[in-house]
């Protein structure tokens, strides 16, 4: 357990020391929220209706943006190879990596969501539903993204491969995420989409570490 926390702590320290990447991602996330009203037009009602979808797409694209640096730096300086001989299994380390990846990439976006909500004229219940859906759904995005990053870790010309691979798999998260955010806005509220979203996240976070460690083992051979 201590080793597990150390892996997370190391990633967080590294992210804080060179925080540029997280900041870039955050700016990208907000930029999507800025260009959308320009593209769609400043109609308050349309923007408010589309807001959950816009926020979800912005979150999806900006998590994909940060994927390539998840394992590549560790692979290049040999950290990944030495982690093979850590006191805990590579699967546990992969789980720790998912958690740190979520803390570094998804949490700042969720914290920045109120800004987008104001820009997109969201109502309070819709906003609360969206942020709950993001909290429930982004762990699955982080888990899938980590699988994509582990698969493309050795590829020198594969910077775009991980997003292409992960996007189709992220479609269920997008579907349930947006419908969960919308289900609390209208007249009838329903929690089924929200529950589905949580279930997808639990499954993804539970099974992804095995896939990640298999891919990383194959990559380091």
């Amino acid at each position, binding site marked *: 357990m201590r080793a597990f926390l150390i892996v997370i702590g190391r990633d967080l320290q590294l992210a804080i020391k060179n925080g540029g990447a997280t900041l870039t991602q955050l700016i990208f996330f907000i930029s999507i929220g800025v260009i959308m009203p320009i593209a769609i037009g400043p109609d308050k009602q349309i923007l408010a209706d589309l807001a959950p979808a816009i926020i979800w797409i912005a979150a999806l694209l900006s998590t994909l943006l940060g994927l390539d640096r998840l394992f590549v730096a560790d692979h290049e300086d040999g950290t990944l190879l030495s982690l093979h001989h850590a006191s805990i299994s590579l699967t546990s380390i992969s789980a720790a990596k998912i958690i740190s990846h979520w803390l570094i990439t998804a949490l700042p976006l969720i914290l920045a969501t109120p800004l987008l909500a104001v820009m997109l004229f969201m109502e309070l219940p819709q906003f609360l539903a969206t942020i709950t859906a993001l909290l429930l759904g982004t762990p699955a995005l982080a888990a899938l993204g980590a699988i994509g990053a582990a698969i493309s870790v050795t590829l020198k010309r594969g910077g775009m491969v991980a997003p292409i691979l992960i996007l189709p*798999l992220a479609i269920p998260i997008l579907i349930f995420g947006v419908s969960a955010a919308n289900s609390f806005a209208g007249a009838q509220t329903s929690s089924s989409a929200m529950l589905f979203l949580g279930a997808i996240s639990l499954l993804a976070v539970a099974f992804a570490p095995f896939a990640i460690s298999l891919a990383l083992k*194959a990559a380091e051979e």
Partner: protein
Amino acid sequence: MNANKMPSTNKPKNWFSALAHPGVFLGWSRHFIRPLIFLTLISFAIGLWFAFFNSPPDYQMGETVRIMYIHVPNAWLAQMVYSIMAISAIGSLVWRHPLADVAMKAAAPLGAAFTAIALFTGALWGRPTWGTYWEWDGRMTSTLVLFLMYLGLVALWNTFSDQSKGARIIAVFTLVGAINIPIIKFSVEWWNALHQPSIISTQGLSMPAEIYTPLLIMTLAFSLLFFTLHLVNMRAEIFRRRANTLERQHVIENAQASAANNGKGENK
């Protein structure tokens, strides 16, 4: 790493490993290509004759029902090819078998093609019967996702320079993506949307025999087509790997020879 690409001399013990040895595979699979081509052509001839001339038009859909004889076999193959890739992926992860890698790689572009045909004919069929080329219904969306995953796998194979190392990583992704297959299968039952339920189910057939017969023959014909193309593609892939290995050896030998010559020149 290169050892499993090279024909090795030690003979495996059980019959399956014996037949699956790439060198042995090249030997016996050669005799299957022509019979498979012949069977494919025969079943296409019979199936198309049934489909065009010996089956009645549907009382609701009219002549457009004949699109089904192309659409359903391709949709079936779209899922079967992925299942074959997933089984090969297990083979390449668990036993690290080079032939499983080759089977997995050779199936990906074929699966993409069959899925594309299924989507395209589905759109053509949907226009006259549903009044739309495309609807974001569960089965259509999940089949589109399958198509995107095939394309992603083809792209992934192209990015790995070391194919046998890439195979194990790609196998992981293939298995992760296999979750989509049951989603496609049950999509029409989970989301009761536009696409009709399966015509072949445990409750028996939901169509008359004169429509069912050509459908079955066409499914057989397309499956045979896949097996033929897959076999040829696998053989081509093995030959491609051998050619690469030979080329690499040649480069190394040339370099050694020129190094030796230079050394002699300096000694004189």
